[in-house]
């Protein structure tokens, strides 16, 4: 994968570059807006990591120009500005994701891969966690190879949780996404769906965080809770 890194800070830029190289990616590193423009015109990048605080121009205007020309190129913004307003502005202006500095390398890699998957249509591949596999286009679910039949709501629920593996999804969000009528007065409807799902795929996947939501952990639970 070819990544265009637009970052003016020497140490940060080099650190990211080496880290990505170690992961087997190709990196073109530029430190100025006009160099970035040229790199975009000439080369074929698969993804852009864009720092907003550049010395010779605004990252946001580069983003706007980029969006006018190449609509499909994934862009991940790296910025020190963490205010909600700033994040929303970045996403509304056409960025696909927004990472606040400082960030963990693991997080950067995970988001880069997610963006790459999306842009390559690699969402064609099934999501796999500990033997549970879900293929979205065909709506096929398997547990250790054995197919499982799920209702529409159960499938939505499982798909949602698997796509956000390791992150707790709130009851509210699940109710909005999964229940046909949206969140309503019946707070039990969601729990009923979850328990039905657990019966079908097995108890060890979905973890309850009481009062808050549900999560599917990538790693197996330690004490079988």
């Amino acid at each position: 994968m070819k990544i265009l890194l637009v970052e003016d800070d020497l140490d940060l830029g080099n650190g990211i570059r080496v880290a990505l190289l170690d992961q087997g990616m190709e990196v073109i590193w530029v430190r100025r807006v006009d160099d970035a423009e040229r790199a975009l015109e000439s080369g074929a990048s698969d993804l852009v990591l864009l720092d907003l605080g550049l010395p010779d121009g605004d990252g946001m205007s580069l983003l706007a120009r980029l969006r006018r020309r190449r609509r499909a190129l994934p862009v991940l913004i790296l910025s020190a500005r963490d205010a909600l307003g700033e994040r929303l502005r970045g996403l509304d202006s056409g960025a696909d994701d927004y990472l606040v500095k400082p960030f963990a390398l693991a997080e950067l890699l995970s988001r880069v891969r997610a963006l790459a998957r999306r842009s390559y249509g690699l969402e064609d591949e099934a999501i796999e966690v500990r033997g549970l596999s879900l293929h979205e286009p065909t709506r096929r679910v398997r547990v250790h190879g054995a197919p499982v039949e799920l209702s529409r709501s159960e499938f939505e629920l499982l798909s949602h949780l698997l796509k956000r593996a390791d992150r707790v999804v709130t009851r509210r969000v699940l109710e909005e996404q999964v229940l046909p009528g949206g969140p309503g007065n019946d707070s039990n409807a969601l729990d009923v769906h979850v328990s039905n799902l657990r019966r079908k795929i097995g108890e060890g996947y979905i973890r309850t965080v009481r009062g808050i939501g549900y999560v599917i952990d990538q790693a197996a639970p330690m004490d079988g809770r």
Partner: protein
Amino acid sequence: MRRWVRPTLLRRLLLAQALVLALLWSLAVGLFLAEASGDNLYEAQSAHLAVIAVAQNLADQPARQYDTLRAFDLALREGYGDKNEPGLAPGILVRQAGRLVYKSDNVPAELRNTRLDSSETMVAQGRRWRFVTRQSAISDTRVTLVMPGGGWQLWLTFSSRGYYLLPLMISIPFLLLPAWISIRLALRPWRQVAGEIAARGPRDLTPLSFKPRHEELRPLVESINALMQRLRASTAREQSFIADAAHELRTPVAAMRINVEALQAQRGLDPRQGELLAGIVRGSDRAERLVGQLLQLMRSNAETSPPPVELLALDLLVQERLAALSGLAHARNVELELSAEAGVSISGERESLMSMLDNLIDNATKYSPIGGTVMVGLRRDAGHAILTVADRGRGIAPALRSRVFDRFFRAPDQTQTGSGLGLAIVRSVIEKHGGRIELGDHGDGGPGLLVTVRLPLATEK
């Protein structure tokens, strides 16, 4: 007692008024006395001439002469003397052909002038006397008018005319009472300004709402407003500087972290190197958190252009933050649990409330024992939303509970890492939303800390 000793404007004004009154009064008295003493029997010749006339014309009738002179003498004494003090009365000595014809009772006979028509003094009978002798133009009749010593004369005049001056003296204290009342009333606008300033909270630097109509107060109120304006600007600059500095720190910290993590991901490291690198990552983690909290704190303190206040579903916000933080809690083997009433709405700033929740949950998680649970509760109670965060850790000693909200305060036996800003941020946000926070023990007497936050519910439109 102390209060009465300190100077007050009121007393100053009162004193000034009393002094002016006293001055005017003294002036009046002085003028009066001067005028009265001008009316001095002693200096005028009229008394002398009258007595001379009497003595001359009745020289050939000694008995009648004596009676008339006596009557005159008594009249003099009554008119110019004090009934109760015969010693203060004037007296006369009448001599014809060198022989004493009449002498007043109270006057010694040996008084003699050495010269005519001039005032002389002599000591006789243990007292001082002043006297003037005049002689008739047509005979050898001489009349000496005698006044007892100088000082008494003033008193004489004073007391005989006293009924004019006494009311004046008595009325002065009674004049001061209305003066005090009127001055107090007049100073009311002054007290209003002072009252408004005294009622100000520590962070309230907005201009005074009281607009003075009076000339003297206007410059005062204007200078106070100008001072507040300068203070506001200076505070804003300071906070903006801190925020900028914190912001600038983010890139170098990010650089450190990425480089170390890239190193960690490489193969061929021995365990000790791995350990050292992990130490660097942790250090940069702490720096990161401190920067984040500094910015949160500056934002929650900032007065300039406050972010919009919106109607928020607190129950959903709490759920959201707990979900976001449960990953970290799970990694530390701590469970998060929420028990919330639905539909708890407050009006406030989303971002700062998120900071508050994050800091409270993070603290509870940090201090929870491994395998423990952090219980978060949210309910409504009489117009307020009550948020509770309970952990079963070491708790906070009652003596330290008020101090933990201070910036950078760390308890003496602190083992956990932290910036010391978390609770300062929490308090700042709560204050901004008009709420209260309490640190307490669990109802069942067990270990740990129970944090209770009260926030006013959004009012129905």
